C-alpha cells in the first residue's frame, strides 16, 4: 500500500528518543519533513548522529517541557506552517503513590499535562488556519495497565490522552484530527532495558510472544499520519500484541 499525505511538515516532540529517530528515518524516506525537538546538547547530538546522512531533510528545535519561552521560540522558528504533530515527549516519574515527593508530583503534572495542553492550543490554532492537521499522541499500554510505581506516569498519559481525544472531537469538523497510539513492550529506549530484565515473564504474558519493534511502531505512525487513516479520529489504538486484552 502506498501512503499519501496532506502536507509534509511534521513537528516531532521528544525527537531525541530512539522511536522518534526511527520514525524520522521513515518520514524522510516518505518525503515528509520532520522538525525534531531536543532539550539538551546530548539530545541534539543524538539527532545529528542518527540522521547524519539526511542533511537538509530535517530540522531541529529546542523545546523543554515546562519552559514556556522555549515553546514561543519554536513557533518563531517554524511559524504556523505545520501539517502534523507526533508527540513522544514524556517525563518519567516512578514512585509509589504513598511514597511520592509532593514537589515532584506538582512539577511532573505541570510539565507533562499542563504544558502539553499549551502545546496543543498553539498547534491546534496553527492547524485551524489551514483547516487541516493531524496529531498522533504516543501513549502507552501502561496507561491502561500500570505496574506498581507507574501511577504518575499512567495518570499523565491518561490525562494527555483525554486532551488529544477532545481536540479531535472539537476540531474534527475543521479538518484537524487526532489519534492516540498505545504501544506495549517495545524493543527500544526504556522498553529495551525493561525487556532485558523481564524478558521471559513478558513473553509469557503477551499473546504474540514477542515484543513490538521500533520499526513496526514507526510504520504504524506513518500510516496514522496518512490520508488512509483520516477516518480514525479522537480514539486510541493499542499496539501491544494483545497484552492488555487478557488477564
Amino acid at each position, binding site marked *: 500500500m502506498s501512503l499519501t499525505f496532506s502536507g509534509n511538515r511534521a513537528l516531532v516532540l521528544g525527537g531525541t528518543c530512539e522511536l522518534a529517530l526511527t520514525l524520522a528515518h521513515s518520514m524522510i524516506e516518505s518525503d515528509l519533513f520532520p522538525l525534531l525537538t531536543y532539550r539538551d546538547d546530548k539530545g541534539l547530538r543524538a539527532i545529528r548522529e542518527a540522521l547524519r546522512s539526511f542533511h537538509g531533510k530535517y530540522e531541529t528545535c529546542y523545546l523543554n517541557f515546562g519552559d514556556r519561552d522555549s515553546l514561543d521560540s519554536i513557533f518563531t522558528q517554524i511559524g*504556523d506552517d505545520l501539517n502534523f504533530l507526533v508527540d513522544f515527549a514524556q517525563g518519567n516519574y516512578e514512585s509509589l503513590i504513598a511514597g511520592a515527593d509532593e514537589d515532584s508530583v506538582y512539577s511532573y503534572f505541570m510539565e507533562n499535562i499542563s504544558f502539553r495542553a499549551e502545546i496543543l492550543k498553539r498547534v491546534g*490554532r496553527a492547524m*485551524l*488556519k489551514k483547516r487541516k492537521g493531524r496529531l498522533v499522541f504516543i501513549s502507552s499500554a501502561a496507561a491502561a495497565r500500570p505496574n506498581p510505581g507507574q501511577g504518575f506516569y499512567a495518570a499523565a498519559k491518561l490525562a494527555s490522552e483525554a486532551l488529544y481525544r477532545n481536540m479531535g472531537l*472539537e*476540531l474534527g*469538523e*475543521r479538518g484537524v484530527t487526532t489519534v492516540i497510539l498505545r504501544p506495549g513492550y517495545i524493543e527500544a529506549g526504556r522498553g529495551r532495558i525493561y525487556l532485558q530484565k523481564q524478558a521471559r515473564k513478558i513473553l509469557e504474558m503477551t499473546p504474540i510472544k514477542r515484543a513490538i519493534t521500533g520499526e513496526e511502531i514507526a510504520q504504524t505512525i506513518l500510516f496514522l499520519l496518512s490520508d488512509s487513516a483520516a477516518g480514525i479520529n479522537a480514539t486510541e489504538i493499542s499496539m501491544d500484541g494483545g497484552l492488555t486484552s487478557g488477564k
Partner: protein
Amino acid sequence: MSRTSESGGHMEVFAELKKILEELLDLEDREIAPETLLIQELGAESIDLLELAVTINSRFKITVKDDEIFLTRFRLYSTEAKQQGKDAVHYVAGRYPFLGEDRIAEIMAHIKEGPQLKIKDLISYVTYRSQGV
C-alpha cells in the same frame, strides 16, 4: 493595518471583519452591521468563535485572548463586583478596557436576553490591540 483616523480605522477594521465573517459563517445573504449580534443573530458557535479568534490574530497581526474578545467572563465579573459591593459597570470596564462604560452598561441591561457580543465589540478589541496595548 494602518489607521488614517479614528473613524477611518474603524471602517477598515469593520470591512475586514465583515469579510472574515462571510468566509467563516454560513450567512445566507444576511446583512452584517456593527450592531449585529454575533451569537444570537449570526448563530456563531464556540468552534466558529475559536476560528474567528485565530483568523483575527493572523489577519490583523494582533494577540487575541479569546476570553477577552468574546467577553466570555462578563457575567462572572458582574457577579464578582456585586459580591464585593463594587460598582459593576466600573468593575467590568476595568476587565474589558477596550469597551467604554456606556457599552458595558448597555450589555448589562440586555444580558438576560442572551449573549450580547456585537460586531462593534470586535472592532473595539481589534482597534485597541492594534494600538499595541
